[in-house]
């Protein structure tokens, strides 16, 4: 639809630019705040021009040299915890979902449909519903304040299993039969056919699950009490002390910016795969 109507074009641009401003302005303020001193931020009105303390604030945040009333744990460590958790959750989810979808689609075993429906039912339950029993189990297993405690309960994923199941169902049966005639056993078929064919689905899932893992809030809040095991999202919360206490908002904002970078990077880097997956479907 190509129309040459100047007024409509201008209107469309105005709407779009407004939208961008609304989304981008808070991010800009965060960034600006992270380059000023704590004192500058509290002085109303806060300057909307970047200050000169960028390097200083960020090194202070990463090394945990805050003098605020809240938590003063180093953000560097938090970033590491978040990164490990997000990666383990994303990769673990993909691996487990691939295998369970493979079992459900390609093997005829007893209670196969029961297994499928059991997985499918969990789709309907939000994490919050099962959070206290899960906490109890994790606590009893001594997994509080560990990477295992942060990641294992979040790995099982009905959504991803369902997605791969749907994908496997579209793979023609003849492909399996041709592979059988060529002498490929079940795992060989999985490795040589299904894995390469689901590369693009895996990439898409990785992006979604990495961000899901990185942005986890409620669960890490419950299972971590030790500063050295805080993911960065929790870290931001812990840095803000309640009440009248003085917060070093410049460092809090620097931490927020740091927390935003990895998911943004993942999206930007994996976008190529997304597009590639959409453009040339290999099926």
């Amino acid at each position: 639809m190509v129309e040459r109507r100047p007024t409509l074009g201008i209107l469309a641009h105005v709407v779009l630019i407004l939208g961008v401003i609304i989304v981008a302005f808070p991010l800009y303020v965060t960034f600006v705040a992270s380059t000023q001193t704590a004192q500058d931020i509290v002085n109303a009105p806060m300057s909307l021009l970047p200050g000169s303390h960028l390097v200083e604030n960020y090194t202070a945040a990463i090394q945990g040299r805050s003098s605020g009333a809240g938590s003063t744990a180093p953000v560097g460590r938090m970033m590491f915890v978040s990164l490990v958790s997000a990666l383990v959750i994303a990769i673990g989810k993909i691996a487990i979902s691939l295998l369970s979808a493979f079992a459900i689609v390609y093997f005829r075993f007893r209670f196969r449909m029961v297994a499928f429906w059991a997985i499918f039912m969990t789709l309907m339950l939000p994490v919050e519903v099962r959070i206290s029993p899960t906490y109890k189990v994790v606590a009893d297993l001594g997994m509080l304040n560990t990477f295992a405690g942060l990641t294992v309960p979040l790995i099982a994923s009905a959504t991803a299993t369902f997605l791969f199941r749907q994908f496997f169902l579209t793979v023609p049966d003849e492909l399996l039969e041709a592979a059988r005639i060529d002498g490929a056993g079940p795992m060989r078929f999985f490795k040589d056919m299904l894995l390469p064919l689901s590369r693009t689905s895996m990439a898409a899932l990785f992006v979604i699950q990495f961000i899901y893992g990185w942005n986890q809030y409620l669960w890490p809040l419950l299972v971590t009490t030790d500063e050295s095991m805080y993911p960065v999202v929790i870290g931001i919360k812990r840095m803000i002390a309640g009440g009248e206490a003085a917060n070093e908002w410049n460092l809090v904002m620097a931490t927020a910016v740091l927390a935003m970078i990895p998911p943004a990077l993942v999206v930007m880097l994996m976008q190529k795969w997304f597009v590639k997956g959409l453009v040339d479907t290999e099926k």
Partner: protein
Amino acid sequence: MGSISIRNVTKQYGLPGKGTPVLHGIDAEIADGEFIVIVGPSGCGKSTLLRMVAGLEEISGGQIAISGRVVNDIEPSERDIAMVFQNYALYPHMSVFDNMAYGLKIAGVPKAEIQQRVDKAAGILQLGALLQRRPRELSGGQRQRVAMGRAIVRQPQVFLFDEPLSNLDAKLRAQTRIEIRKLHAELGVTSLFVTHDQVEAMTLAQRMIVMNAGRVEQIGSPEAVYARPATTFVAGFIGSPPMNLLRGRADGATFHIGGQVLPLTHRAPRDGDIILGLRPEHASIGQSVGWPLQVELLEMLGAERLVHGKLGGSEFTLRLDGTLPPPAEGHTVPLQWSRDHLHWFDAETGARIES
């Protein structure tokens, strides 16, 4: 080497005893190097039979032996067969070379030999320039050749073809048909080819197996099946347009149909209810005497002309040379035939009665 024997093979889906039977006791002996076409309407069980030979379907009863070895419980990859699928089933993420080499790689064939075998097959099929392409970059005909190449490199005892030409356009189909014939002449490997297309069956087969509703109707050379169909089903299935089948009553040297009495030149093989068969191309319009055919519709096909009409109330089609003057629609013309071209079938079983 390369022989297949199918002994009383049955197939049913579902639980034993309660399932739906699909094949009711198929028997066939196929010699080494033969090109056999299994032909029948869709749903007759021909693909199921092929897939049972391949090992992709379980055998419910009976035995299948390849090269004298019973294969009922042997994995497809161990049966020394290769199969070409209807939609080719090429591995979409692999190059043409890898598609052909995959089976050999799994079998642990040394690299140099894989290279040599694939190159040879590619040479035969003129795929040399396409070896590094992906299947989606190929045309339908090229994909079909890759599927054949994948079968050839395995150097099997038996080739199985499951309607491999049905996804090609008419021109390419005719061309590929000839290529498959040549390939068979060159390699001499036993081939089992399933199709629903009788032209494919007639042109490719050394012997054909005509199937209907899970049973074998007739096994024989295309000439034999055409000249002496064993049942009314075969008579109606092979030949285009199909044989005219007139259900009536024979009485001595006369045939009674729809209140008309048609004279025969000889006695019918038996008196009473009977089916008379006469191919459209084996009758002609005579000068004055003959069976009265009421002409209803003419179809001009170029080289020939089809005359549709009624004979004693039954549908009758006549095939005439296109250069002959056509009869007028609505008129009745005298139909002539020769005794050798009459076929007789049992009115109840549909089985052929030799005269």
